[in-house]
C-alpha cells in the first residue's frame, strides 16, 4: 500500500506541475490522471471511466487569469483512487472528489502566497545581475507546489483507504442511489461554467444549434466541431466581409440609422 501511495503521490505531483513547469499540456486533467491512477491500482478501465466522469464535472474549471480554482488534481487522484480501492463505482469518486478538491485548494493558495517571498528575493538577485540566484528562486516554488499535493495524497491513501472503505460500505442504498443521480447532475456544473465563459445574447444561438444537432440529428462531438468550424468561417469571414464592404459603400446613408439618431440636416 505504501508503494502505491507514493506512486499516487507522484501522479498528483505531475498533475500539479503541469500548469507550473510543463506549459499546461493537459496532464492535470482528471481524464488523464484517471488513466494513470488506474494503471497504479491495477484497474485501468475503471480509472479511465471515473476520470471521464470527473472531467465532465470539472470541464469548466480552468486556471484562467489570477483566480485559484478548486484543486482538481488532488481531488481527481484521491477520488478515483478511493473509488477503485473501495470497489465502489463512479458515484463514490464524484462525491469524494468534490470536497477533497475544495479542501486542497487552500494549500494551493498558501503556496502562491509563499511564492511572493521568493519573488522578492529574486528582485534582490536581479539588482546584482545574479542570473543563478534568479534561476534558483524560480525553481524553489515548483518544489513547494509538488509537495503541496504529494504529501496530502500519500497521507490520505495510507491513513484513509480503510476508513473510506468502511464508511462507504455502511452507506444505505437510498443514499447511494441518490448519489448516482447527483453524479448524473454534476456535469451540468461543468457545462454551466463553460457557458459562463462563452455564452452571450448575440452568440447564444450557436449553443442551441449544437444542442439541436446532437438531439435531433444524432451528430457526435467531432461532427459538431467540424460543422461549427465551417459555420464560423462562413459567418465571420464570408458574410461579415461582404456586409462590411456594403456598409462601407453606403456609409453616408446608413450611418444615421446605425447610430440610432435621426439627422434632419
Amino acid at each position, binding site marked *: 500500500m505504501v508503494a502505491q501511495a507514493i506512486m499516487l503521490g507522484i501522479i498528483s505531483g505531475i498533475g500539479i506541475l503541469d*500548469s*507550473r513547469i510543463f*506549459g*499546461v*499540456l*493537459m*496532464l492535470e486533467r482528471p*481524464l488523464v490522471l*484517471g488513466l494513470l491512477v488506474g494503471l497504479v491500482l491495477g484497474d485501468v478501465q*475503471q480509472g479511465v*471511466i471515473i476520470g*471521464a466522469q470527473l*472531467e*465532465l464535472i470539472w*470541464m469548466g474549471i*480552468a486556471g484562467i487569469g*489570477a483566480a485559484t480554482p*478548486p484543486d482538481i488534481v488532488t481531488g481527481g487522484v484521491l477520488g478515483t483512487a478511493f473509488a477503485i480501492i473501495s470497489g465502489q463505482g463512479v458515484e463514490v469518486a464524484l462525491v469524494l472528489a*468534490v470536497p477533497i478538491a475544495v479542501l486542497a485548494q487552500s494549500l494551493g493558495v498558501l503556496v*502562491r*502566497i509563499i511564492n511572493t517571498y*521568493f*519573488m522578492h528575493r*529574486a528582485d534582490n538577485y*536581479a*539588482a*546584482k545581475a545574479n542570473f543563478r540566484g534568479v*534561476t534558483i*528562486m*524560480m*525553481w*524553489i*516554488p*515548483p518544489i513547494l507546489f509538488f509537495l503541496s499535493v504529494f504529501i496530502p495524497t500519500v497521507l490520505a491513501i495510507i491513513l484513509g483507504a480503510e476508513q473510506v472503505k468502511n464508511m462507504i460500505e455502511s452507506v444505505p442504498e437510498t443514499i447511494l442511489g*441518490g448519489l*448516482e*443521480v447527483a453524479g*448524473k*447532475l454534476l*456535469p*451540468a*456544473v461543468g*457545462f*454551466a*461554467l*463553460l*457557458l459562463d465563459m462563452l*455564452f452571450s445574447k448575440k452568440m*447564444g444561438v450557436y*449553443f442551441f444549434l*449544437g*444542442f439541436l444537432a*446532437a438531439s435531433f440529428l444524432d451528430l457526435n462531438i*467531432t461532427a*459538431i*466541431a467540424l460543422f*461549427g468550424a465551417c459555420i*464560423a*468561417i462562413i459567418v*465571420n469571414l464570408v458574410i461579415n466581409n461582404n456586409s462590411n464592404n456594403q456598409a462601407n459603400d453606403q456609409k453616408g446613408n446608413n450611418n444615421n440609422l446605425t447610430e440610432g439618431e435621426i439627422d434632419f440636416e
Partner: protein
Amino acid sequence: MSSPKKITKKELRQVFWRSFALQGAFNYERMQNLGYAYAMIPVIKKLYDKHDDQVKALNRHLEIFNTTPAVSTTIMGISAAMEEQNANDSNFDSNSINAVKASLMGPLAGIGDSLFWGTFRIIAAGIGVSLATQGNIFGPILFLILFNIPHLFLRIAGLKLGYRVGVNSLERIQKEGLMEKIMAMTTTVGLMVVGGMVATMLKLTTPLEFDINGAKVVLQDILDQILPNMLPLIATFVIYGLMKRKVSITKLTLGIIVVGILLHWIGLL
C-alpha cells in the same frame, strides 16, 4: 563601434523550452513575472555585457506579467526582438519593451483563452470523454494528442513570428479587428460543442409513470416527443442561472449532491 548584437536560433530555442515553466513561481503580487524573466535570461546574457544593462533588463522582465501560457512565446519573441534593438541602438526607448508587453498580454490572453480553454480543450475533451466513458484507454490519449498538436505548434510558430515581425504587425492585426474575428470564430465552435455535449453527455431521465384510466403513461416518452434531452438542457440553464446570481461553485456542487439525493428519494429522477 563593435559589431551589432544578434540573437541566434540557440537563444530562441532556450526561450522556447524555458517558456514551459512560465507559471512555476506564480504568485499573487506579480503573477508570472519570475517565469517570464527566467525565460528571457538567455536573451539578456547574449545581448548585454555590462552589469548595469543586465540589471535593467532583468528588472524589466520581473515586472508583473499574466497571459495564457500557450501564447506567451509570441510575446517573448517580440520582447527578444526589442531587446536586440535596444542593445544595438542607444536611442531606443527601453520603456517601450514593457509597454508592448503590457498592451499585448490582455488581447493575446483573450484569444489564447478562447482558443485553447474554450475551443481546443473542449473539442479534445469532448472526443476523449466519449471514448473514455466506455472504458477505452485511447480516450485520454486522443485528448492529449488533439489538444497538444495546435498547442505546441502555436508555441513554436508564435515565438518565431513574434521575433521576426515584432510589434508593428501585431499592432496592425489588432487594429484591423482580426483578433475580435478569431475570438468570435472560436466562441462559435466552442458554444456548438458545449451544446452538443449537454445533449450527449448529461444522462438525465425521469422514471415517473402515471396511470390514466388504466393506461400507463411514461413521462420521459412525452418529454422526448416535445424535445429530446429536455431535462439536461433545463438542468444546465438552472445551474447557469444560479452562477449568474453569484452562487459559488463550491455551494453549487455540494447543493447538487443534496438535491440529487432528494430528487431520487421522492422518485423524480
